[in-house]
């Protein structure tokens, strides 16, 4: 068997979620009326503002907390958040760009083999859990990386973690375990 180091895996970061605060109260109605590309949701108490350039969607609360989703990299997330704060500033609010933090990164990866989930779960008993009646994927939680990997029998895996680095490490860590339980064995 080939060691797993030779495989080049394409880890595609599909979503980066970040938050930041503007440190000032935001009048949602004003943003809804004056802003461009906004969706006012009064029933939920927030305004969605979408940006094209880094394609992101931001949920804006009146407290000044903003959650930014849809970016494809951490840098893009920060850039988009700054652009967003700039938009709010142009509307007239005294925004400050503070407490920016990437809170979640979602990545997908397609492995070149299929996986025997039951065997995988048995081999990694406490860390992996698999309930086919509930969800078709086995989930593998890596505590020290604070990341979760969801393994599908097709060989696709999704990884969520607090940053891109931990996501990459999680894939590296789990690859040999998955390699052991692949389906294409004669």
């Amino acid at each position, binding site marked *: 068997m080939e060691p797993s180091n030779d495989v080049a895996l394409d880890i595609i970061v599909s979503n980066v979620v970040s938050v930041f605060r503007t*440190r*000032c*109260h*935001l*009048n949602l109605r*004003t943003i*809804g*009326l*004056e*802003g*461009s*590309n*906004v*969706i*006012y949701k*009064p029933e939920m108490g927030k305004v969605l503002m*979408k*940006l*094209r*350039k880094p394609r992101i969607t931001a949920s804006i609360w*009146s407290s000044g907390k903003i959650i930014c989703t849809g970016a494809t990299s951490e840098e893009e997330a920060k850039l988009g958040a*700054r*652009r967003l*704060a*700039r*938009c709010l*500033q*142009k*509307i*007239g*609010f*005294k*925004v*400050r*760009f*503070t*407490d*920016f933090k990437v809170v979640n990164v979602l990545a997908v990866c397609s492995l070149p083999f299929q996986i025997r989930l039951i065997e995988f779960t048995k081999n990694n008993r406490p860390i992996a859990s698999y309930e086919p009646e509930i969800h078709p994927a086995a989930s593998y939680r890596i505590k020290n990386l604070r990341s979760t990997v969801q393994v599908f029998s097709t060989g696709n895996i999704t990884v969520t973690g607090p940053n891109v680095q931990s996501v990459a490490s999680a894939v590296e860590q789990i690859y040999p375990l998955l390699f052991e339980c692949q389906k294409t064995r004669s």
Partner: protein
Amino acid sequence: MFADEGVEGRVLDSLRQVTVSQNMRLLSHFVCFVSVHLYLTFCCLFSVVIPAAQNVPSFSSKSSCGSVATFSLPAGITYPVQIPAGVTLQTASGHFYKVNVPVMVTRGSQHVLNPAAVARSSALTHLSDPAPAASVCETPLNRQSADGASLAASDAQSEFTLDGIEFSPQPADMSTPPAQALRSDYSRQQREQSTALPDLQTEALQTELKFKQLLDITQLDGVADSSSDTEEDGDDDDDLGLVGEKEFLGMINEEEELEEEEDPLNSGDDVSEQDIPEIFDTENVIVCQYDKIHRSKNRWKFYLKDGVMSYGGKDYVFSKAVGEAEW
């Protein structure tokens, strides 16, 4: 024509005004303005839709759009640390002034000139010109001093010589630098346990705490509380404690860092550039009521009713209209 003629009458009036003046108007909640671009880019709201790319200037000078009251530095800059009451500082020339200065943690409220404190300050001996300026400057930063009476008596408690502190030049915004210098000097003193500060040291301190840094000192609690909870707790608890100095200086630095991160946003040169696609505003407008507005990712679907559309200079009237657009 329409069931609700009264509404339409008002609506058409407003439409006239919209097309004439290009201002946004807010109508009754069940009417929806839609601005139609050539590319059918929509922006629908619950009650009002903004003609895209139309920047209404009416909101230009809003200093307080629900935002936190900003502190003007000269008048009401607030510091997180409170130096214990009754500390008297003495300049080399022998002027006394009371240091209660560094900021009370207040919520943007004015620092009321404490007449008692002023009286006390003026009652101090050896008052000459710089000193009243100092005391006047200091009192805006004071809350009620706890032991005002002990002020005069306690001039022996801790006396420092603070040479080179400038008071007179700008009584208005001196509140920042001298207070800052005072505070830092005081902290240094406490640490070093020395009574006399050489000029060199003072000047070093002053240059250390550049004005820019001083500008960055803002309220650390309330609306503007920083992310670190422990610091704030320390803030509030160390009311009369001498413990706060090191933490305080550390906090100054942290505030600095925060400010440095934030400031580039204000320059806003690279951050913007959202206006590029927004130049396509036309006079194509739809005024109507809506049945449903639906969106999936960036695909929008509009189910409209009872409306008037002005498109390509011509007016069209409809009882039902369906639209699709990609954003």
